[in-house]
């Protein structure tokens, strides 16, 4: 997993609420057995016409936002299906950070496993960041994970909260499985105890 420390990049405004993972990556692209290559189909049905041509109005098709690395989104981003293909597609496109007032639980977890930082901010802050993002390609926002701040293109700084364990994993690019395997003894002990308490399980 790529480390996440500090990022300065273009932020795409997507004010729509309830952007679900079917929108982020439609089901026909889940038939892959790989994690890579999904960026071209990110937001496929919002981004392309049936004939494959681009829908000019869609934010990531606009010249100013084609290199976006941040999305500022309406509430409940990533709801619906558990498909990790959603963060894989975002990452493959180049998105490393999504900011919203709320995220669906599974999507939120999945982001951290892939080096993407989801940031929850109150509505008034998201409103400020959304307006800033609408200024276009010259309005770059800065995300500093170590300091836990988002800075707008005109220098306004907003702090955010993040779970300490998840922050540590992102900053150091740590693999969860390796960390858990260190605790193999505790898992062995648990299994031994559970076998007596709930032998049918």
């Amino acid at each position, binding site marked *: 997993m790529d480390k996440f420390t500090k990022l300065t990049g273009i932020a795409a405004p997507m004010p729509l609420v309830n952007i679900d993972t079917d929108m982020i990556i439609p089901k026909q692209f889940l038939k892959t057995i790989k994690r890579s290559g999904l960026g071209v189909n990110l937001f496929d049905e919002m981004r392309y016409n049936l004939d494959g041509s681009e829908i000019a109005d869609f934010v990531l098709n606009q010249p100013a936002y084609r290199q976006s690395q941040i999305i500022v989104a309406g509430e409940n981003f990533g709801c619906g299906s558990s498909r990790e293909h959603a963060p894989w597609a975002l990452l493959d496109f180049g998105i490393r950070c999504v900011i919203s007032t709320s995220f669906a*639980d599974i999507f939120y977890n*999945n982001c951290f496993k892939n080096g993407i930082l989801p940031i929850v901010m109150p509505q008034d802050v998201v409103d400020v960041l959304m307006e800033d993002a609408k200024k276009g390609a010259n309005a770059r926002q800065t995300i500093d994970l170590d300091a836990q701040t988002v800075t707008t293109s005109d220098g306004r700084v907003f702090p955010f909260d993040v779970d300490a364990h998840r922050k540590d994993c992102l900053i150091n690019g740590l693999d969860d499985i390796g960390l858990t395997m260190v605790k193999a003894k505790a898992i062995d002990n648990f299994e031994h105890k559970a076998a007596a308490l709930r032998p049918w399980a």
Partner: protein
Amino acid sequence: MTARTLYDKIWDDHLVDQAEDGTCLLYIDRHLVHEVTSPQAFEGLRMTGRKVRAPQKTIAVPDHNVPTTLDRANAATMTEDSRIQVEALDKNAKDFGINYYPVSDVRQGIVHIVGPEQGWTLPGMTVVCGDSHTATHGAFGSLAHGIGTSEVEHVLATQTLIQRKAKNFKVEITGSLRPGVTAKDITLSVIGATGTAGGTGYVIEYCGQAIRELSMEGRMTVCNMAIEGGARAGLIAPDEKTYAYCMGRPHAPKGAAWEAAVTYWKTLFSDEGAHWDKVITLKGEDIAPVVTWGTSPEDVLPITGKVPSPSDFTGGKVEAVQRALDYMGLTPGQNLSDIKIDTVFIGSCTNGRIEDLRAAAAILKGKKKKDGIRAMVVPGSGLVRAQAEEEGLAQIFIDAGFEWRLAGCSMCLAMNPDQLAPGERCAATSNRNFEGRQGRGGRTHLLSPAMAAAAAITGHLTDVRDLMTATV
């Protein structure tokens, strides 16, 4: 001892380790696996030389991609990429030695129907699957939720999951449901009341008389859609109905082990005085047969209602509703019962069980679908299909002009040949009405199996109560 909720109790009994910062390691009793969200996880194990820690607790079945037409044994019915995914699961199940129900097995079906049917899902367990509708298994009083593919790999390798504890949310449905109202109407009405983000950060426990009165099938329908309300999981405390459902299933305990299990299961309820972070109460009598009109499961109204206007909403929802009405091709003020449909889909992990088929067949018996309507019934498993044939339900569907299919996820998510065409409007017993969910440009109205049957007969969304014969 402190009063605890059912969620607290299951959590406590599965806690392997708790770090100083509150990060917990939770033991997983059952890991269900399907072909879409697992290939990258197995590949990860191979690349790192890791094994599946508890193959005997891991159960796999292909469901999302498999065609449901009778000719599916012919490999040409699947696209190449679908076939590769199913073959990858065949190989991974064999290489890693996990329990497996291949497409050719009569027990094959939707993973959330097969798990309970085979007795893998039991009260008080932790159950995960790389699929958001894992919430279904909460109907047994097991803590069950969807996970991403990285977490699938984590569970395969360690039989644990890194978690932070969620908050407790009590959803009480008092009284009894009125005739024509079902579990699907309960779960959609709850989402209508709380919104699709109302459950974010919570585990829901559904309780109250109307929940107690539901069968296990109905309880699975309710818990299945907990995720559509944003909750991590939905739970219902086990009772005699739960034990009766589990008893004798292939992987349920037997003899003395059964007695010991029931003794433990009887401790699985929320204590008097337990702390709830959020509570809502709905009256069972007030719940009507409902349908969705928009592109989010929270866009739900009684069938007697009218299509709303964006101006009825505030904030970000105004734009979302306008977008939904444009997508759905609906006009504010239109009667919901005037909406004409092209297709009826009965099936999915929400409503593909035997009771669902019975409810639809009861409405369809002796009647025919309206001419020009495409209608299909897709049983949730090969065993549900066999039972429906034995009970004569299959013949009722066939006589009514429905296609009688083999088991799979089918049109719920259209990763297989069952899809809507652009603009095609479907009355569906599934769980998501998102844009493009059932096929690009397809328009989905979620409803109960009985309501879907009623719509098939009339050709438009219909109040099923108008078609029910008066009971004495």
